[in-house]
């Protein structure tokens, strides 16, 4: 037995909106009314009353169906400005009865779940696109359903209450290409003995560009001597382009460094972002919030 408070809570949280089928229902009731009223047609009266009562009862069922459906943010990939990113939510049915015909809408994208078993959860992936970098909030999610009868749409909003950092859009010249053009990099020694296959962790400055150009294979020089203290250093001030372009470029390079496990540091005017001291996400965040 549910308490009165629960019913009040249900009424407050789940809202209704009439659909086009509501118009048909009204027309049906009016037609029955006209047919019944003029000549006291009791069978038709009964049909009319049943329609009205069932429509009302279905409203209650629909609200109960939706009330116990809850949504929780499960995980999300990195959000980049101007790029479609996905995040996962967990849709849970906390009721003792199955929930039917559930639709989840966010950012004009709708996903439909036919049924969720009692005390069962289902994972849904949603897409989102932020146009600007910086701190953003995930939009509230609309859960709606036409169950059990389609004359009314029952819906409720769930606030995600989640602030996320949208990183700058990764764009610009890829890191490897950049190095092939600008090979005056710190830590390079001219004498080397043979070449070997480039493996992860190798210094970027040791790339044998001739092999890359000729054979399209990434080979590195086998130096007799290496300066272990050297790493990639990016300077925001000296980069070309406007601030946004620079930030996008830096974002791209940070991602590529992460992929290849390159150490790097970024001189972001008043801040030095060192990959050995900060995580990639922290660095990206700093770039995004610039």
């Amino acid at each position, binding site marked *: 037995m549910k308490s009165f408070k629960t019913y009040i809570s249900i009424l407050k949280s789940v809202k209704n909106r009439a659909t086009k089928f509501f118009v048909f229902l009204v027309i049906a009731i009016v037609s029955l009314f006209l047919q019944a009223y*003029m000549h006291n047609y009791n069978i038709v009266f009964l049909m009319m009353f049943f329609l009205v*009562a069932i429509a009302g009862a279905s409203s209650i069922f629909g609200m109960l169906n939706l009330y116990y459906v809850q949504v929780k943010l499960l995980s999300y990939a990195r959000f980049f400005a101007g790029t479609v990113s996905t995040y996962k939510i967990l849709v849970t049915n906390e009721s003792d009865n199955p929930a039917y015909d559930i639709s989840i809408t966010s950012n004009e994208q709708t996903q439909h779940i036919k049924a969720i078993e009692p005390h069962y959860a289902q994972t849904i992936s949603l897409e989102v696109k932020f146009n600007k970098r910086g701190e953003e909030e995930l939009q509230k999610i609309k859960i709606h359903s036409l169950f059990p009868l389609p004359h009314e749409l029952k819906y409720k909003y769930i606030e995600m209450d989640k602030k996320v950092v949208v990183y700058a859009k990764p764009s610009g010249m890829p890191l490897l290409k950049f190095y092939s053009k600008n090979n005056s990099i710190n830590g390079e020694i001219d004498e080397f003995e043979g070449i070997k296959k480039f493996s992860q962790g190798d210094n970027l400055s040791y790339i044998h560009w001739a092999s890359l150009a000729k054979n399209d294979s990434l080979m590195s020089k086998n130096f007799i001597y290496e300066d272990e203290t050297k790493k990639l250093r990016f300077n925001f001030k000296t980069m070309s382009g406007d601030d946004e372009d620079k930030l996008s470029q830096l974002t791209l390079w940070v991602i590529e460094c992460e992929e290849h496990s390159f150490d790097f540091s970024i001189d972001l005017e008043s801040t030095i972002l060192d990959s050995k001291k900060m995580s990639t996400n922290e660095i990206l965040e700093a770039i995004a919030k610039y």
Partner: protein
Amino acid sequence: MKSLKQLLNIKAPSSSRLLDIAIILSIIPHLFVMKSFMILYMLIALIFILKKEKSDRDKYILMAIGFILIAVTFFNDYNFSSFSRIQFFVSLVSSLLIYAITLQKLTQEINIYLKISPALLMLLSFFFFESISMLVYSIFVLFVFVLLTVWSRMDAKLIDVLKLTSQLFVLSLPAVVILFLVFPRISFEKADFGFKADSYSSSGYEGKMVVSSKEIRLSNKPVMEVLFKDANISENNLYFRASTLYTQDGLEWKRGLRSKKADNLVEKKNIINYDITLYPHGDKWIYSLDMPTYALKKTKLNDDYTLTSEKPIYEKKRYKLQSALSYKLYSKDLSNALEVDIQKSKRTYKALKGLKALHVKDATKAMLLLKFFKDQNLSYTLKPKGTNLEDFTDSFLFESKNGYCVHFASAFAQSARMLGIASRVVTGFKSGKENMIQNYLLVKRSDAHAWVELYLGDDGWVRFDPTTTASQNLDILQNTQNQAASQNTVFERINLNFMYVKYIIDSWILDYNRLKQMAILDKLLNDTLYLLKFIFSILALILVTFLIYINIKSPECKDELMCEMNKLLKILKGYNVVKNDNETMEVFLKEAEIKLNIPLLEISEIYHTLKYAKSDKPLELKRLVYKITMLKNRDVAISKV
């Protein structure tokens, strides 16, 4: 059973199939009123629709066939003059709608018009039928429509959809009942829609009486249903008059030519109000209790106080009548109530000479005449034998001495006229309390009866039933009637109860109107006890609805083991021993055993055996159920102590 289980476990069919089911259900009532050409068209359309490979050509062929057959239906079978405009209009609209549906089905495209077509067809079918079967069918179809609509949105088995739809219906019942009772009605006259009359096509009552020696076969078909406002009506008053017959032409009693002077009903006492539902009989007779006091709209109270309708009765009609059980009915013209041919009844005339010569009142003579009949030792039988119809009265009274009500009435009326007392034969129905439940009386064709009214001066026309003078019933004695009677008694009783329920539904649902509504309102405002009963009934209905809803709602037990263990957990909860979510069953039961000092170890062992068993172990489950039941009984015993 297996197939029923399989049926209940089926998942939702396609939306096209669901729509087909709805259309088929909504077309069924129309099949009963459609003309043959329309039915032929539907069969042809069905063949086209079921064809595997369809082409555009099929559509055009069907279109043409449909057009021709509909034209033929409406210009050949129907005579415009015999149907009202609205009946023609409704028939035409339903035929065109079916035409459109079949053509749309052929395109295999489901559009919005096809989706709403079942509702439109049902709406039109209400114009054709108004009966209990239509009421039941309409509710059934509405249930199925709701089920199909819910199923299209519910990815579940049929059994689950049925449960939900039942819940919707059950929850809506109190609102429907309250709305039905209180929704204001306006008192427009009820329209005579409906092309089909009830299936009864009895010849009904003929309004004349023929003295015959043929055997009579009883028919149990209902003639009318009566609901008295007062239950205290005695069996002696259950005479329903139909016609009065004055002149005998050979063996036939007729109404004869009557003067224009009407009878006069005075000193009306013991007024009784009652409703009758007359079954169609194709004539104008309305059978009213002796003696009706007034005529209703579209009826006529004749000068001899019989009631007739303005038009022949071809369908069930309900009337509100009033009769006076105690009355005086006077006539000014008794000329044709004294006509008697003594030559044809010489022996009777001779026997009654002495009685005629007595200087006593007519009332006394009438009682003596009754005694005379009694003394003749007459027998009642539906198979009269040995009666000479040439001199019927003499033969009946002195030779054959057997017959049924027609013979008794004819002989008695003739005899009374020989005594100089004006008499007339009254034909109608005489019912008995065995056909009564509370205030409800079912009058059957077998209750047809004839009696006599004698004019006794200041007392006016007085009823006499000469059939009661019969000393025995030959049919019962010969066991022929009794055998049939004993076999049918139980069935007749069931039938009577069924008719009563049917009558109540007819009266309170199909015929619920403003008058009844006002009557209820009036009673609610003036009778506190009635008001309390009404409120209590509504609350009881809401409670019963809620209980049914809860019962339907209870989720099925999918995990038998956990369902049984939940019972145990509930028992232990009663002792404030509650299992935590993160506690294992083994630990919990061990602790509970120590705390409550009750044996739970074996239950724990069986539970774990079943939980981790690779196959079903029905015996172990039964043992578990048994152990838990024993624990429950012990719990009950302790709580009782």
